[in-house]
């Protein structure tokens, strides 16, 4: 599956190949109304990764429903709306509208965006915050509810347990790590917001550890995210306990990487004489 914020609204990837080959696409984070996002510069390359400070630029849920959804709804892959808001009421507002869309069978509740001043990660770094927003969104949504967790916490397992307790059907982790970059020559930060979210292979070992911890702490399925670049990475996340994985920043490097991962996982299953990837989930040999 493709991670939110790295694959637009699926059309941009469909320009390269037929996206029905993919397991699912988590669409760009969507808010109740238009957001311009943060000022340029919003990106800095870092060793084996990058920082971004986009700040949830999107045209709002109504624009999505009227203009984008009709064009993508029959793409033949699972489309998941990434739901955002500054307040619980805003999260619920977006959720209620998505609930009416026949071809969207799941939402990803984003309580982990590090690049917005209000909402976003603020809900995802405390158990009461995560519980409150999950509880209200759960009431407003009949289908699959996935909660995307922030790694910028002391114990991500606690947050995962908190959202599980409020009826989440699954958790996805990790969102980006809060980081920063400085130009030593100019002595200035490289991002307009000073700090941003770190992604890419640089974060993979930490993401893997968090997925492992969370998968032991909850009974609901875990979706692994964090620097996955190839089939071996994807399999590592599954061994650590992820039932599925999302590929994100790798798409910037090459939008074909998810197809290579699918092929590579199939090849792995054949080589190891395994029938289904589900037999790999959590099968870390200790």
């Amino acid at each position, binding site marked *: 599956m493709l991670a939110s914020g790295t694959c637009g609204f699926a059309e941009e*990837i469909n320009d390269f190949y037929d996206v029905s080959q993919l397991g699912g696409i988590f669409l*760009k984070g969507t808010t109740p109304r238009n957001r311009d996002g943060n000022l340029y510069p919003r*990106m800095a390359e*870092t060793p*084996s990764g*990058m920082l971004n400070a986009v700040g949830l630029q999107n045209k709002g849920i109504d624009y999505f429903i009227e203009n984008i959804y009709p064009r993508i709804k029959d793409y033949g892959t699972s489309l998941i709306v990434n739901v955002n808001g500054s307040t619980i009421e805003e999260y619920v507002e977006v959720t209620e509208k998505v609930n009416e869309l026949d071809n969207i069978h799941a939402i990803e509740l984003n309580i982990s965006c590090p690049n917005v001043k209000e909402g976003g990660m603020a809900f995802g770094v405390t158990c009461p915050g995560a519980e409150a927003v999950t509880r209200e969104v759960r009431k407003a949504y009949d289908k699959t509810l996935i909660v995307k967790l922030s790694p910028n916490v002391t114990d991500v397992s606690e947050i995962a347990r908190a959202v599980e307790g409020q009826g989440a059907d699954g958790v996805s982790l990790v969102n980006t790590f809060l980081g920063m970059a400085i130009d030593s020559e100019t002595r200035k930060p490289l991002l307009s917001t000073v700090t941003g979210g770190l992604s890419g292979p640089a974060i993979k070992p930490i993401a893997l550890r968090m997925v492992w911890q969370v998968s032991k702490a909850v009974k609901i399925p875990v979706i692994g995210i964090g620097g996955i670049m190839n089939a071996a990475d994807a399999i590592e996340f599954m061994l650590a306990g992820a039932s599925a994985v999302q590929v994100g920043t790798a798409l910037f490097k090459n939008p074909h990487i998810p197809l290579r991962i699918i092929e590579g996982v199939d090849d792995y299953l054949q080589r190891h004489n395994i029938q289904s990837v589900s037999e790999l989930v959590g099968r870390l040999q200790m």
Partner: protein
Amino acid sequence: MGKKSVSDFEVTDNIRLNATNFLIKLKAPGSLPVVKPGQFVNIDIKNSTEIFLRRPFSIFEVDYNRNTLSIIVKVLGRGSKKLTEIVPGEKLSIVFPLGRHFSYPDKNDRILAVGGGSGLAPMLFLAKESGLPADNVDIIVGARSAADHVEISAYNKYGKIHLTTEDGSLGTKGFVTDHPLLRNELKNYDKVYACGPEGMMKAVAGKAKKAGVFCEVSLENLMACGFGVCLCCIEPTVKGNSCVCTEGPVFNINDLKWQI
């Protein structure tokens, strides 16, 4: 097959043009689609943890018979430096064709193309593709000094080439905007195009706006993906924040929020 692709191109030539500029020619694995001036390729510069993202380069020349395209690489940072160390025979992963191209001139138009630094690449490509007689095309190319200019006399057949240098060592002394064609004669043109450092493009855009002449510029904001998903290369426009990679890199100056 989608409208965009990722392919391994073979490097056929890597020619040093001067102290900082290289011409790299790349052969496609199959037939090239039609590419137009202002469009770009995004190149994976491999084997380095320090260079994680691709680097975008304007297309300079296309040869549909040989299925090659070339770029001019100016060494600016770690990515461009590493790329210029490539040797013929090596392969590069290329995402292409990307971006919106310059508006083609109308028949009988008079056009002025202004290039600074490696920004001359799409300007020469445009002059060649314009389909106009050379008398209708003026090209101003600016550089710091004579040593920073590259040999482009082959393009004389597509337009009159005018050189400027900041130190006066070749052509008109000063910035491109000090050239008489930009100082006094802008109203003689139907369309003005510019590609180069932002300060240069803003100066050209300011003069074009004052003269009421159509003007397009090509921006080079930092980008991660190159195909409109990361939303990192945004530029404020009359339509809100636009992606330079998909809604540009070519913009009409009237659509930009530049203070000019």
